[in-house]
């Protein structure tokens, strides 16, 4: 693996760290298996690409609006669940398939190239340092800031209410927590992070694509499960760090297995390998970590 490839993998690993943080909020904190991300990832990509290319927006506000769109998508999923009592998984599926159509409308087609467009990465070019070094640096700063903000939020009164709402809804309600509102906020936040990841991925990769959301849910989940079963997760800050680490590790595992010719894997095998990885980790970790318990209990 060359330095160029290495930094490229780091870049994607950082971006998918946001997806992992989103999965951490939904699966781990809110106990809400959220499938919306399959649609909100390409939604973020599509919104950012259109605003930058068709409307000539500055890439920063375009990226921000993409995240807000993601918030809206998560909010709708939570609303279907909270207000109309639709099963959480089904709510997410409904919103993500709707988003598939919406994304095609937004882009007026299945994809939108961003090559040559002004992106958040081109803003940091030309300082005498090559872009393939500066881009991951920029991303690292953004993603770590978001991680710290999330840690801080989860320690506020509101953040603690959200944690209680997921862990013990009846007890939370008896202590004045509006559990439904916490789901709306949490799913909004998680999908804002996912859409942000989509927007950044499109700008890094050079295009937005309606199909780029396939498997995002399982990548996020794999990152959270793998990260949290390897690193200690006694505090919130450790847990979010473990998610970022898991996302990075996942990316490297994918890069290596695709590079290893003797395995004979093709790029299209990634989803299958990921699913197997999740199963193996869940089976292997028995009931050691809370996450394993959580997901296994649910499936039984």
């Amino acid at each position, binding site marked *: 693996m060359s330095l160029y490839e290495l930094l490229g993998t780091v870049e994607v690993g950082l971006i998918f760290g946001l997806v992992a943080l989103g999965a951490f909020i939904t699966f781990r904190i809110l106990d809400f298996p959220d499938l919306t991300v399959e649609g909100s990832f390409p939604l973020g990509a599509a919104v950012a690409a259109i605003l930058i290319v068709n409307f000539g927006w500055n890439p920063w506000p375009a990226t921000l609006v993409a995240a807000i769109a993601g918030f809206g998508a998560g909010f709708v999923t939570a609303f279907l669940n909270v207000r109309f009592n639709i099963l959480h998984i089904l709510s997410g599926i409904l919103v993500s398939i709707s988003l598939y159509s919406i994304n095609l409308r937004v882009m007026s087609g299945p994809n939108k190239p961003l090559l040559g467009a002004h992106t958040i990465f081109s803003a940091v070019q030309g300082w005498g340092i090559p872009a393939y070094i500066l881009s991951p640096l920029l991303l690292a700063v953004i993603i770590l800031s978001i991680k710290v903000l999330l840690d801080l939020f989860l*320690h*506020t*009164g*509101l*953040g*603690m*209410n959200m*944690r*209680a709402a997921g*862990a*013990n809804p*009846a*007890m*939370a*309600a*008896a*202590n*004045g*927590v*509006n*559990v439904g509102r916490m789901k709306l906020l949490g799913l909004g936040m998680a999908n804002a992070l996912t859409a942000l990841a989509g927007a950044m991925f499109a700008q890094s990769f050079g295009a937005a694509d309606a199909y780029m959301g396939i498997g995002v849910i399982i990548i996020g989940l794999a990152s959270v499960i793998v990260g949290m079963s390897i690193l200690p997760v006694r505090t919130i800050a450790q847990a979010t760090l473990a998610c970022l680490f898991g996302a990075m590790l996942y990316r490297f595992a994918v890069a290596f297995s695709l590079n290893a010719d003797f395995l004979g894997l093709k790029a299209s095998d990634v989803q299958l390998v990921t699913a197997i990885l999740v199963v193996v980790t869940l089976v292997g970790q028995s009931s050691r970590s*809370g996450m394993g318990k959580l997901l296994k209990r649910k499936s039984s």
Partner: protein
Amino acid sequence: MIEVSDVRVTFNKGTPLEATALHELDLVVPRGQFLTVIGSNGAGKSTSLNVIAGLVRPDCGKVVVDGQNVTDWPIHQRSRLISRVFQDPKMGTCEDLTILENFALAHGRTQPRGFRFAIDKTIRERAAERLKLLKLGLENRLNDKVGLLSGGQRQAVSLLMATTGETRVLLLDEHTAALDPKTAEFVMELTREIVTELKLTSVMVTHSMAQALHYGDRTVMFHRGRIIFDAQGDKRAAMQVSDLLALFKRDQGEELSDDALLLG
């Protein structure tokens, strides 16, 4: 003060499983009164607490707490007026949060902290000070996850949490039933101390006739969704556990003869 007037509760309405759990219930608990509630299984004791706390919406009737009509309020809104300790120690505390965080959560009920940090020096000190009452050494374990505590310890913490804010109404549903006799006694004495000290309006459901007569100022007995017995003052002071048992038996007997009629 709690006023339940003319409340009817029917479960599974319109299905073959339809069952009326409360029949036109009227119950007034004046400010500062400690009411104990007894009755056989399925008599409607928990359902009436759930109606007061907002977990069960009545078909008709009205619930007023501290002068406010709360009939249409959701649970979390009522929690500003009402606190609860559940029978299951796992329900009263959140095991993924630390003792201190649980305390802060209970504190937020009457003083929400929004975007400020959930825990600050005042809350830490207050929690430690309250936990000292328990003499269990928990004030030195503030940062331990609640999941590490025993059932009795968790129940004691739940009770402190329930009485930590500014709520004036306390609902206890067999809150010592899952504890061993010694711990149950300890939690019960603690309940009495706190309720007396804070002059809380309290309703306690129990299956122990002795407890029902020993604690509190008034005792009611539920039977099939109705209050069939209500005693306070001298009448209650003169009552023995055996008198209550006799009442209990009479109702069970009545139930049997009803069934016999149906079968016959």
